[in-house]
């Protein structure tokens, strides 16, 4: 049966890859009339079985989707051609389609007690969420069967297949962010507000029914540049009943039977000035367009550049216009409120990152500049104070003055229970202390020093250490904190390893700072049974300059002197003799450390990347004047959850690390995309690091574990990958080493 043509036919129709000899064998087999008849009979029997056992359902909805698609396509054409409105029959057809959808019927969810929680039904999955229920802020990806969303007992949204939405809003002011796909929204009048957010603007309704779609036309042509993708998004709104107000730059009101396409005008849109490529920081600017979720900002001043910023000369962008979009983060609701207060010509202070490559994305800080009497460009100092609620702390940052620039002090809101994070501030009970002082990029490079006030177990702790991604653990990564305490007997070191938990900012920390030294504030959870204590990260800052070498280095990169003295079974980590261990959190090294003035000391924990069996600890001493180790090449970085969402297929790439049940692959090629794949741009994974793990599969095949065990860093492999949720990707079906030719 191994080479049986029937099996080959089965595999071919299934969408599996056939080798050249197999394809040849199948073609030869199907060349004969008799076998073709047999093949036909087999195919028909399969069809008959499927039809009998799983009769097709949803034909009505499928037909309505066709009608909507026809309307949208025609509108898109007309917009592109710059012509007039749709033929009335097509609008009517769309209206009829939506009405038919309504005819499917639904009953509003009327909570017996409090306000109804968001509820989703149908074929969907929650991205990046471990919880079973749907909560606000969660991204919902709709499967092929379509899904339905009910909000507040008065909003009902029918979601088409492959649609992605994020549930926003709150009581009586429901909101959904439509990132991609089509939604038919039905809102019962006089029961509350509803806002549909799209990449190009938002739509407000009081009581109506309308269809909205967000499409990225270039994506269908294999466009890889995400910047272009976003720029050419097309939002279409078709109103069935009631009136909607479309806030897309200006405000457009649409009534029953009316439709409008809001397409990007790429040629007139500002692009990101080259000086701001990779920018991360705070800037002050004047809004020069109508205010919506996207707006144009004329940059008045670069107030702060975060150490992580890669922009080389951001000051060069002053006076230029840049497109800014309010990003999807926990501050979105607040930012949307801020947007409502802003007008063209207002000056704003905004923390913005270059995330998308063609515009800046608003992060946590976004507000009108004049509110607190901030001075405008060249006035010297911009101060900012935000009210903070009960139990909230504050973060203060002090930045060095730059020539011609003012000083920015910012005070960020701090969540309840997080303790206080501030600069040079007396320590409070139950809290750790956060000292944040912007330093020269290389300060502290040579020495890891920790002076920490002993916090209480329940409070926020401040600590400095090295971050390392550990995809094989039930956590995002680890933080290794080395404290040096001077005693009469000499300098002693205390090493504590924390498991960085995914909650809070843990995942973000590991993504942004793996291999780097960070200062952070977080809550420590006790370790048990030999497991290191956990750490819920609240705030963090990367201390290394962007151009500073990462801690994981490959052989030949930089000078590393290793001194291995002891190796413990199963750990692979070499350490000095332990003499004391306290609280299960750390261990003391009894080694005198001498430090000569004027010399820095470089501590290195080198990851063994060859066989993945463990890790060794080495030590590197570097004195001033010596060349710093070169940074590891990070061509594409780690694949984001968005990039891997829905991916199902075969990846080709190089193993850059592995553990017992996972490997990290630098993707070089998308070998194949399976039928079930819903990832819109799998090519975007090329060049990225993807972690493929067996642990998400209930019963991983033994063959995969065996193949994984035989791999080593540097091997080129072909691997089957199935996205699970968030950034988690399962290793499935195939793991084969590609031998060098």
């Amino acid at each position: 049966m191994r080479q049986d043509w029937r099996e080959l036919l089965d595999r071919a129709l299934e969408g599996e890859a056939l080798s050249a000899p197999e394809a040849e064998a199948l073609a030869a087999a199907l060349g004969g009339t008799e076998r073709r008849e047999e093949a036909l009979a087999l195919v028909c029997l399969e069809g008959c079985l499927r039809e009998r056992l799983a009769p097709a359902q949803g034909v009505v909805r499928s037909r309505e989707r066709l009608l909507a698609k026809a309307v949208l396509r025609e509108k898109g054409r007309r917009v592109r051609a710059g012509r007039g409105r749709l033929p009335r029959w097509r609008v009517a057809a769309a209206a009829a389609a939506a009405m038919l959808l309504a005819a499917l019927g639904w009953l509003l969810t009327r909570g017996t007690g409090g306000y109804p929680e968001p509820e989703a039904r149908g074929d969907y999955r929650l991205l990046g969420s471990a919880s079973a229920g749907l909560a606000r802020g969660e991204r919902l990806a709709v499967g092929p069967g379509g899904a339905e969303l009910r909000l507040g007992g008065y909003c009902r949204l029918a979601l088409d297949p492959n649609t992605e939405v994020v549930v926003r809003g709150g009581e009586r002011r429901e909101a959904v962010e439509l990132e991609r796909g089509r939604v038919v929204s039905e809102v019962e009048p006089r029961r509350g507000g509803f806002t549909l957010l799209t990449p190009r603007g938002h739509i407000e309704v009081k009581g109506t029914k309308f269809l909205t779609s967000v499409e990225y036309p270039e994506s269908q042509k294999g466009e890889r540049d995400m910047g272009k993708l976003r720029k050419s998004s097309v939002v279409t709104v078709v109103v069935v009943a009631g009136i909607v107000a479309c806030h897309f730059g200006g405000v457009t009101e649409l009534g029953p039977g009316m439709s409008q396409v809001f397409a990007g005008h790429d040629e007139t849109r500002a692009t990101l000035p080259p000086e701001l490529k990779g920018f991360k920081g705070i800037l002050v600017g004047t809004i020069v367009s109508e205010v919506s979720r996207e707006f144009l900002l004329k940059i008045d001043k670069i107030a702060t550049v975060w150490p992580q910023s890669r922009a080389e000369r951001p000051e060069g962008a002053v006076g230029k216009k840049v497109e800014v979009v309010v990003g999807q983060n926990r501050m979105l609701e607040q930012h949307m409120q801020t947007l409502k207060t802003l007008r063209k010509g207002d000056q704003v202070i905004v923390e913005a990152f270059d995330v998308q490559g063609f515009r800046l994305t608003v992060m946590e800080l976004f507000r009108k500049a004049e509110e607190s009497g901030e001075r405008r460009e060249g006035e010297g100092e911009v101060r900012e104070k935000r009210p903070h609620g009960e139990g909230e702390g504050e973060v203060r940052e002090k930045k060095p003055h730059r020539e011609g620039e003012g000083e920015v002090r910012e005070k960020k809101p701090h969540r309840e229970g997080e303790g206080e994070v501030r600069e040079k501030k007396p320590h409070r009970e139950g809290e750790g202390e956060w000292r944040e002082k912007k330093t020269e990029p290389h300060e502290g490079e040579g020495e890891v020093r920790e002076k920490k006030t002993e916090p209480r177990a329940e409070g926020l702790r401040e600590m400095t250490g090295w971050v390392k991604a550990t995809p094989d653990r039930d956590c995002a990564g680890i933080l290794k904190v080395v404290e040096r305490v001077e005693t009469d007997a000499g300098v002693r070191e205390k090493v504590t390893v924390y498991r960085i938990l995914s909650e809070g900012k843990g995942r973000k920390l590991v993504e942004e700072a793996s291999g780097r030294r960070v200062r952070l504030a977080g809550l420590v959870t006790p370790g048990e049974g030999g497991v290191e204590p956990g750490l819920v990260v609240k705030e963090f800052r990367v201390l290394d300059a962007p151009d500073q070498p990462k801690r994981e280095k490959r052989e030949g990169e930089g000078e590393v002197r290793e001194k291995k003295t002891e190796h413990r079974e199963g750990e692979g980590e070499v350490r000095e003799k332990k003499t004391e261990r306290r609280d299960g959190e750390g261990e003391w090294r009894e080694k005198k450390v001498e430090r000569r003035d004027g010399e820095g000391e470089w501590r290195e924990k080198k990851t063994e990347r060859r066989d993945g069996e463990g890790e060794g600890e080495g030590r590197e001493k570097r004195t001033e004047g010596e060349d710093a180790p070169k940074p590891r090449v990070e061509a594409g970085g780690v694949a984001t959850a968005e990039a891997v969402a829905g991916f199902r297929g075969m990846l080709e790439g190089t193993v850059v690390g592995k553990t017992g049940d996972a490997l990290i692959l630098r993707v070089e090629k998308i070998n194949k995309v399976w039928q079930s794949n819903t990832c819109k741009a799998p090519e975007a994974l090329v060049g990225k690091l993807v972690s493929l793990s067996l642990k998400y599969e209930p019963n991983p095949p033994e063959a995969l574990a065996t193949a994984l065990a035989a791999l080593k860093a540097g091997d080129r492999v072909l691997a089957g990958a199935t996205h699970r949720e968030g950034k988690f990707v399962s290793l499935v079906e195939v793991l084969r080493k590609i031998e060098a030719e």
Partner: protein
Amino acid sequence: MDRHYEGVWRYARFLTRGATEAEDLVHEAFLLAFDRLMEGQEFAGDAGAWLRGTLRNLVKAWWRERQKLPQDVADHLGLLADKTEEAWASLAGEELRAALDHCLGLLGPEDRDLVARRYERGMRITRIAEELRRNAATVRVQLFRIRQALKECVEGQLAKGLTT
């Protein structure tokens, strides 16, 4: 459109083995038909036949491009697809359904479970193999044997029905 939509949609599911792209392919066929009508062209004969023929061409292209089947294999499957229309029509027969129901009832629990996973729940063979902790080739062979047995059984039933 109402008259043809369901038939074409089911035919697409049949040709694509229930793939998620089936609906897109159907929509593409209908949009082409709309374009044709907009341009003032008419269908020579049955519009349903035109739609099914267009759908077959789209499925062939899908096999080649999306499924990445080699050209010669895709060509042969294309020839196969061209012959499916008649076979497809025969699937609607009550006798065939009754015979199939009867034969499915004769399957053992293990085989029935396998058939349910594959055709009722639409699971891929590799996924079934993962869940059952078996080799995919083994599952494929087992399903193949079940289909052979069902085919013989159905043919026997139909023959019996014709003679009685």
